[in-house]
């Protein structure tokens, strides 16, 4: 199966013995930074990180683009009653809103508008740790600065199954993500996740543990 994926993706995969990222999750107070173009599958990854917290309270989505589709969150296990969407593209009030949401919500997914400084993000990271609120940050441009995110996920490739030359429909996707940060003990790893839109996102076992430093 590794060979098959190598062939399909043309990506060298070199598993390291004994190192496995078994699941994709963040603890209360931890921050996940997601970087990648729209279409790389990171919105659903963000929802899957927060879905466990929606069972005990509300989670918020700070929608800077105004493009949020809550149906995707519902499919990832966040019930409609537990999801609140805040729409704002105002850089000035953005940090206040995120800080306020963290004081009362069980989890926050925030798109970062262009122009938010690293200092502001570090303050919010401190606030997240204080309030023990899991925070998922998705910059619209660039990446979350180093040291802020406990888990950094950079989209590398995504493949979809189910469609071919006009036939079928999108059914299942597989995304390769570069994971780094404290949660990976400072090493960069590539993990593969898959979902079919109706289940929680799953980390593909056996393919998740490879080091990419040697060919980065």
């Amino acid at each position: 199966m590794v060979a098959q994926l190598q062939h399909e993706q043309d990506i060298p995969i070199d598993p390291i013995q004994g190192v496995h990222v078994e699941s994709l999750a963040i603890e209360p107070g931890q921050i996940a930074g997601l970087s990648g173009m729209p279409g790389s599958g990171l919105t659903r990854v963000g929802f899957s990180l927060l879905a466990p917290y929606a069972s005990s309270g509300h989670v918020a989505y700070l929608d800077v683009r105004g493009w949020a589709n809550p149906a995707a969150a519902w499919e990832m296990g966040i019930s409609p009653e537990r999801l609140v969407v805040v729409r704002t593209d105002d850089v000035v009030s953005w940090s206040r809103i995120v800080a306020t949401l963290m004081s009362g919500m069980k989890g926050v997914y925030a798109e970062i508008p262009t122009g938010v400084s690293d200092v502001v993000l570090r303050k919010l990271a401190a606030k997240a740790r204080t309030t023990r609120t899991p925070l998922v940050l998705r910059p619209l441009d660039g990446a979350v600065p180093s040291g802020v995110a406990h888990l950094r996920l950079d989209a590398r490739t995504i493949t979809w199954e189910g469609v071919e030359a006009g036939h079928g429909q999108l059914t299942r996707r597989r995304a390769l993500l570069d994971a780094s940060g404290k949660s990976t003990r400072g090493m960069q790893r590539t993990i593969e996740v898959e979902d079919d839109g109706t289940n929680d996102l799953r980390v593909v076992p056996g393919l998740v543990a490879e080091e990419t430093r040697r060919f980065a």
Partner: protein
Amino acid sequence: MRRRAAEAVCPTVVTIIQDPTAEMARFEPLIDMMEVLVPRVEVIQPGLMLIPTTGAVSYYGGEGSLVERVDKELRPFGTDHRIGLGMGPFAAQQSARLTTDERPIHIVEDDARFLADMDVAALDSDDLAATFRWLGITTLGAIAELPRDAVISRFGKQGLRAHDVALGLDRRVDPRVILDDPTVVSRFDPPINDLEEAAFVARNMAQRLISSLSSHGVAPHRVVVTAEAADGTTRSRIWRSSDPFNDRTLAERIRWQLRAWIDGVSAGIRGGLVTLILEPADLSGSGRQMVLEEDAKSFEETQRALMEVQAIAGMDNLLVARPQGGRDPAQQVLWERWGDEPSQPKHDPGAPWPGGIPSPAPALVPPEAVRFEVSFVDGIPEQVRLRSRWVPVLSWAGPWRSVGRWWDGETAADRYQIVTSAGAYLCEVREGATYLLGVYD
């Protein structure tokens, strides 16, 4: 048997005179304790109460868990309590009667089946039971099989009630009476001109109102705040919340309102505030029964945070969404402002919606379709323009024809799911142009 007759039979008998008042006084602590566990119990008589379990079952995680919790809380009052659980009050009482000292809990799975073999004496009417026996009807199951019209014509209202309980169709629990008029009124002499002073009074009033209602297991979803000025003018405002107010959230709303009236540009309270009235409405029937993991404190914090965000981002920018029917991803979501009354879906979510875009749903949906550059060769999508570069199409599904409401001027469109190395997109082609409907992110 009368007392004298009893003493004649047994000279050493000890007679205990029933004192319902004293019994009720002893029973009251149990009722108070039970209303902490489950709001709005119905007291039948001293020693017997009915507890509505609809909300409590989900709160405590099931019937078994609820009954165990009730049993545990009752133990400090003695071990001679009995607990029966049924769909209706009658079945629950009969269930409790079947309990023993060894097994003080009895849960009925199916009321009608449970009652079917029960003797007609359970109806607590000697005359009715005797008549049924004379007719050869000895069990509640046999009563249930009788034609309803025949029972009504022969036994009247009493027979109808017997027929209902035999079928397991019982009345609902009728909880304690709520205050007729829980309105809180405060009058001020001299009139109040200072906002802080008025806010302090309002906080006390909010606490009084909420505590008086919470003792009956309810909380207001809507509160009418009315202020009367010294010059006789009256101003009123309705505050509403999708979740019941508590004393803090209500005090905050009143403070905001008073600030608008006292310090606002309209200077609406001339001569000072002489009367402040808080009138609750839309009382929640059973309070808000949260699930076990959702503690009340975090719920309050959530409400408070969302109110603050609403103040920062604006009323229209704090939204909740509900699923509804529709063919496009944008149609399938009903957006509402947080705190507003839930509205009826415009599109029936239960309808089949043929031609709807299948799941998974695109995670990003533009509020209005935006232009999307796709190059087609012989009707086949070849390339997609993403920012400044053209990306080849790896695979696609479609076209799916959408005719639309042509009588309303809607044009036909062809939908495509297009997969590139950068991601998958939902787009439509109409009138020669391609538009992006969603991004599978």
